[in-house]
Every structure is written in C-alpha cells, then in structure tokens.
C-alpha cells in the first residue's frame, strides 16, 4: 500500500487513542466510567449503538457476501425496527428507570441472585469469546493481504482499542464510536461513488447484470425453517434476535443506559431502526457493484493472496491447469456480460434475454472453477478457503484511488474497534458489578472499584486478543459471531419476558433458562434441524413455557419480586 494510505491509517489510530486517553481525566467514579453519569445525548448514543453492531465483519464479510450471494442477507435485519419499537415500550424505560448498571442486575431485583449470576455469566462466556472473533475477523484478512504475522495484526487492532477503552471508559468508547461511524459511512459512500465511475456500463445496466444473475433477489417468502435468510426468518427470528441483542445483551444495553433520559435512550434505538436496513442495503450494494466491476476486469482465481501462494507452492501443476481454464471462462463471461448489456444477440423488446441466459451459464462455469480452486486451498491448508472475505480488500488495494484505500482500511479498523470497545467496556461492567461488587466487595469504595474496573477492562482485552490469535479457523466470519450469541440470546430474552409476567418465580426463571439453553443446544446439533435465526425463538419460547409452568407448580418464595410493570 502507498505510504500516504499508511499515513492515513496511522493518523486515525493515533487520533483515536489520544482522544480516548484525554477523556480519562473526567472519570472519577464507576458511574462515570461505565455510564458517563447518564448524561449523553440521544444522537451520540444512537451512533454508538449502530457502531457497536457494525463490525469489521460487515465491512469485509458482508460486502463479500453481497458480491457472491447478492441482497438476500438484508432480510436478516427486517425484524430490527419492530424490535426497537417493542423495546422502546417495554425494557428500555424500565432498565433506564431502574438506575441499574447492567441488565442482569435487574433480574436479581425481580427474581433472585442465582438467575442474575447465571445470565451475567452466560454473557461473559459468549461475549468474551465473540470479542475474540471480532478482532480475529479483520486481523486474519490483514495478515493475508499485507503478509503480517497474525499476532501483529491482532495487536494492531487490539492494543489501541484496549488502551482507550481501559483508560477513557464509556465516554471514550461512545465519542470514538460517533467518529468511527462517520468514517465508516464516508468510506462506504466513497467506494460506491468510485465503483459507479469505474464500472464501464451505466448504473442501470450494472444492476440489470446483477439482477440477471439473481443478486438483486431480496425477498424469499418460503416457509422452510432450515433456510437461513427468508422473509419470515428475518421478520420473526430476526425480531427475537434483535430483541435479545438490544434488550438483554449488556454490550448494547449499556449504550443506552448512558443516555441522559428515558426519552433519549429510546430515541437512540429508533435512530438505529431508521437507518439499519438502508445501511445494510448499501453494504450489500458495495459488494454487488464490486462483482459487476470484476465482471469486466476479470479478477484473480483466488482472492486470498496468502492462500494462493501456498497452493502455487504445493500444487503448481493443478493450479496452473485451473488458471488456464479460469482465463478462458472469464473471457467468455466478459463477452456474455457485454452482449447482455448491448442485446446484440437477441431480437425485439426482450432482446437481452438470450444473452442473460448465456451470462448465467458462464457465471456458473466461473464459479465452478473457483470452487475447484477453493477445494485445492482446503486440501493444501487443511482449512476452509473463506475466499469471500478477500474480494473487497482486493478491490480496495488494487483499484481505489490514492488515499481512499487508506481511508477504507481505517474504516475497517474503526468498525472493528467500535465493536470491540463496547464489548470490553460491557464485559468489565458485568465482571465488576455482577460479580466483584455483588459477591466479594459489596462495600468497596469508588477508588478501589474504579481501579478494578480498569484492570478488568485490560484483562478482558488481553483475553480477547489471545482468543483472536487462535480463532482464525473457527468458521465463516459472519456465522461464528452470530452463532456464539444465538446459543444463549433467545433463552436470556425468555427470562426477561418472564419477568414481565405476573406469578413467575425465581426458580421458574432459573430452571426455565436451563431448559431453554438445552432446547437451543438440541436444535444446534440438528435434533431437529432448524436454521440458526430460529434458535432465539426456540430458546425464548421454551424459557417462557417451562418457566411459567414451573412458577405455577412450584411454591413461590417470599423473595420473588413483583413483575416488571410494578417497578419504578
């Protein structure tokens, strides 16, 4: 990469650390460190909510998914606006009004200490691990494209984030998120503009080509629960996932607990509801346009340069043979794409139709050869190829104008860092509030708790970096992050829903939670087979049913509190 691009990346890293560290002097107590003394405006919280959710996986993996699979992934977010409105009416006013530090703290008020501790522990377990994968996702790509050692890639992203999160607390996290979100959107819009200029056909023709190969198929109305992305899994499964994520996951709950009022807290969530689907569509359109660009430019057989090197060294003859076939297939596809646009081979109003069919066939041929190359990568490296994550980085490094490549790489780092920072900040909050202060030092002073909070943030950062170094081969980047959450999310949501019902007890909530997790574990291992977006529905419904029945059957203890609505 050109030195100017590196200068942009380094300037970004130095600025974000400096800006975070200078906020550390304003923090003198744990309410300031974890919740900014509940003083932040809705727009800053809203941007922080969005930046937390948008990780480097979105910038690299989802854009790549747009290039290979098209728009259908956007269905995943169809439930988000519904979930945000439901949360604005239910959990947000309560959690904000209850003046708690963590969502789990409320469960003790409503049920008992063991339910609080179990849910907080599950959060630490799943988020601690997923934080590692969030660092690993861009680190593995940087290692491959820049030839760095994985440890250095992890350190480059992890250390600056740990520094500003550890010393600056939530103030640093939120205000960094605001700037990072602006940088991310700017980078995405810039790449779309460059693509529209560089693609040799009109935008309308570009979309026609994408449409011809099925990439603009957004909606799938089938009721197949083994399919991951359908309209119904997005609307129903997606609503449950988003309710769980934004309503019970401390990394999100803590964002809106920093808002200065209940109204600011729920407006911040509605901001995300407004922008998430259009933003996700923009991310996928970046991928689609990159695919159209390479339709005319060719592009390599393998997008991952490190994997390509290994294959060339281990299987030179086989790879050479694939290269020859790939070259011919690419040329054929290029020609079919030109014909499909010009309509040279057809007649009448539907004159492009025969050429579209030819394009679909030649695209399938290219994909088949790419599939063979990826199988070769798996054979040589012993790990799945995951070539899709290298499509966008290839375009960024080879075709973006000077300066913009640096900006996009900084944008990928910003996306990773904003998510990691929020995770570390919330992991530390749950550790200190739900365990350290709850079980060991209920009378700990502010100075001690603040010191332990900073130490805990640093240790979680270290843990995440270690996990990241070894998480490289854990499975598709997107699915891994979602899968970790999915295992517990729905069940924890079930506990919070149970809390809103009258007559439910601590024992019902605790054993219902265990039953819910058991049910999700069963469907995760294919008994019966259900796609992962439905796991949250399975978990939440199991907890609700089992928890309610147990609450009615088992004798109620006096310590079980009133339902949510009766609080505050």
């Amino acid at each position, binding site marked *: 990469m050109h030195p100017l691009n590196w200068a942009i990346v380094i300037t970004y890293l130095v600025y974000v650390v400096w800006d975070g560290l200078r906020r550390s002097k304003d923090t003198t107590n744990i309410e300031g460190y974890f919740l900014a003394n509940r003083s932040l405006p809705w727009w800053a919280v809203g941007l922080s909510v969005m930046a937390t959710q948008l990780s480097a996986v979105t910038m690299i993996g989802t854009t790549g998914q747009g290039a290979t699979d098209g728009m259908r992934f956007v269905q995943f977010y169809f439930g988000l606006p519904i979930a945000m*409105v439901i949360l604005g009416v239910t959990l947000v006013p309560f959690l904000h009004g209850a003046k708690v530090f963590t969502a789990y703290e409320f469960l003790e008020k409503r049920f008992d200490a063991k339910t609080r501790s179990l849910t907080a522990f599950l959060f630490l377990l799943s988020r601690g691990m997923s934080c590692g994968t969030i660092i690993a996702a861009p680190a593995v790509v940087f290692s491959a494209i820049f030839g760095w050692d994985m440890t250095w890639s992890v350190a480059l992203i992890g250390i600056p984030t740990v520094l500003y999160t550890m010393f600056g607390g939530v103030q640093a996290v939120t205000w960094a998120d605001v700037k990072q979100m602006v940088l991310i959107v700017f980078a995405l819009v810039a790449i779309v503009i460059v693509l529209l200029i560089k693609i040799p056909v009109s935008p309308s023709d570009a979309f026609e080509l*994408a*449409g011809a190969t*099925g990439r*603009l198929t*957004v909606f799938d109305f089938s009721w197949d629960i083994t399919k991951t992305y359908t309209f119904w899994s997005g609307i129903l499964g997606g609503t449950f996932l988003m309710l769980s994520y934004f309503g019970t996951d401390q990394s999100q709950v803590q964002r809106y607990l920093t808002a200065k009022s209940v109204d600011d807290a*729920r*407006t911040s969530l509605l901001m995300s509801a407004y922008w998430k*689907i*259009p933003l996700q569509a923009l991310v996928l359109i970046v991928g689609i346009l990159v695919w159209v660009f390479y339709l005319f430019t060719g592009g390599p057989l393998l997008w991952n340069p490190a994997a390509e090197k290994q294959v060339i060294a281990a299987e030179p003859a086989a790879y050479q043979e694939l290269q020859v076939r790939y070259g011919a297939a690419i040329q054929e596809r290029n020609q079919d794409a030109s014909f499909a646009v010009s309509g040279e081979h057809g007649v009448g109003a539907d004159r492009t139709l025969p050429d579209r069919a030819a394009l679909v066939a030649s695209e399938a041929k290219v994909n088949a050869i790419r599939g063979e190359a990826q199988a070769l990568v798996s054979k040589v490296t012993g790990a799945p190829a995951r070539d899709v994550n290298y499509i966008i980085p290839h375009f960024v490094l080879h075709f973006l104008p000077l300066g913009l490549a640096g900006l996009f790489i900084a944008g990928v780092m910003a996306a990773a860092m904003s998510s990691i920072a929020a995770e570390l900040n919330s992991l530390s909050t749950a550790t200190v509030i739900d365990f350290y202060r709850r079980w060991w030092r209920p009378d700990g002073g502010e100075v001690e708790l603040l010191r332990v909070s900073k130490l805990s943030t640093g240790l979680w950062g270290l843990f995440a970096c270690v996990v990241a170094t070894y998480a490289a081969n854990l499975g598709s980047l997107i699915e891994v992050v979602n899968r970790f959450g999915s295992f517990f999310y729905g069940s924890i949501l079930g506990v919070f829903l149970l809390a809103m019902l009258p007559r439910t007890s601590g024992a019902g909530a605790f054993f219902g939670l265990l039953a819910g997790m058991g049910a999700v574990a069963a469907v995760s291992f294919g008994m019966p087979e259900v796609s992962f977006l439905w796991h949250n529905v399975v978990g939440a419904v199991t907890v609700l049913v089992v928890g309610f029945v147990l609450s009615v059957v088992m004798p109620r203890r006096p310590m079980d509190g009133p339902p949510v609505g009766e609080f505050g």
Partner: protein
Amino acid sequence: VSGDASRFRRTASQVLLVQLVTLLLLWWFQQHFTS
C-alpha cells in the same frame, strides 16, 4: 412524561412507516432488475 410518550409513539409510527416504504422500494428494485 406523557409528552415523551406521545413523542415516542409518533416517532415509532414514523419508523415503522419508513420501514414499510423501504421494503416496498426493495421489492420494486428486485422486480425492476430481476424480471
């Protein structure tokens, strides 16, 4: 507080309406370029 609640109701209705329009736009996008 009631002012906050009615403002929330108004904004939430707008959000859901905008999402409906977004889905319709995506549907048009799909139909226009895929058929």
